[in-house]
């Protein structure tokens, strides 16, 4: 692939192509280039929230009002939204688009991150939420584009887990 193609550029372009216009997030180091670029793109309304479940509520309201949206969070943030998913998103059939930057694997230095990471896929699986772990740049557009279409068509949430294999992750430096 050409050197100027980046994972965050692909995600931004694919969101735009699918008419996703609202981005809520709780900040994350890995997501910084995506968040910065989204803030600078007037096709998107982008803002931070104080908690991930607050963002889930906002995106649910936006969907019901006719606007597509996505939420960005890190693995530990996902650990706080099980109830919002189980009691609002899943039973109401909301096609919530979640992007999670994966912490807790491949050289994680924080035991807390390593622990909460283990809860993520079991929570998604127990709620029957479709999730994909993106590891390769050449597959990313296909995964995100097709999954957004499926989420909307089937009125079901989807979670994109962005592996350090794709993003580089967060590296411990002395």
């Amino acid at each position, binding site marked *: 692939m050409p050197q100027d193609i980046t994972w965050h550029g692909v995600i931004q372009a694919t969101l735009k192509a699918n008419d996703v216009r609202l981005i809520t997030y709780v900040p994350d180091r890995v997501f910084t280039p995506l968040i910065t670029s989204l803030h600078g793109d007037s096709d998107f309304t982008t803002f*931070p929230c104080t908690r991930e479940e607050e963002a889930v509520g906002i995106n649910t309201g936006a969907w019901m009002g006719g606007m597509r949206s996505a939420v960005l969070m890190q693995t530990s943030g996902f650990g706080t939204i099980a109830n919002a998913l189980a009691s609002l998103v899943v039973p109401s059939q909301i096609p919530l688009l979640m992007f999670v930057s994966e912490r807790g694997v491949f050289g994680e230095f924080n035991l807390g991150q390593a622990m909460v990471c283990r809860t993520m896929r079991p929570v998604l699986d127990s709620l029957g939420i479709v999730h994909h772990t993106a590891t390769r740049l050449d597959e990313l557009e296909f995964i995100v584009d097709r999954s957004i279409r499926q989420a909307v068509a089937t009125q079901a949430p989807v979670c994109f887990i962005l592996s350090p294999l794709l993003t580089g992750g967060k590296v411990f430096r002395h």
Partner: protein
Amino acid sequence: MNNRTAGGAHNAKVMNRFALTKRLVAKLKRDEAVIGGIGNTNFDLWASGPEREQNFYMLGSMGLAIPIALGVAIAQPRRHVVALEGDGSLLMQLGCLGTVAMRAPRNLTMIVWDNGVYQITGAQPAATGSAVDLVAAARACGLANSHWAADEDDFDRLVEGALQGGPTLIAAKIDGEPGVGQTERDPVRIRAAFMKGLGVKP
């Protein structure tokens, strides 16, 4: 120092949630969206007019009524959106007031029913009952247009003003009466009816 009168709230008359909910709904003439928070807030909204299509009844996800309303307000800037929330629920998600202030949607009104207890679980004490003044908290979060309703007429006046442009937070001290009705328990039907009421096709 423990300020048991919680700033300004001591001047507010203790009113009834169902009576105020009916007064609010009577003011809604332009298909305003209403998001009802969990529990008795929802039950009284339902009882005020279950046929009203622009009502969304949040069954779980305690604390998310205002965030959901903010999302609707962003998606439909020409429609006014009202969030109804209990004091215990708002305490759980106080940060959302800062997010609302940061976005400053003119088409959003937040109404908080404050009885100082977690009523539906057995009236256990909430921090609002002895310590927290939610109107002062909202102002400190950047929502300058936040007020206690002194009585029913003042509530009406505040609602009329809020519907002209916000964001506005109105708090009312309420009594211990339980909710009057019971919402349906079918989340898909509630969501689909609400979207139809907003003119949105999924």
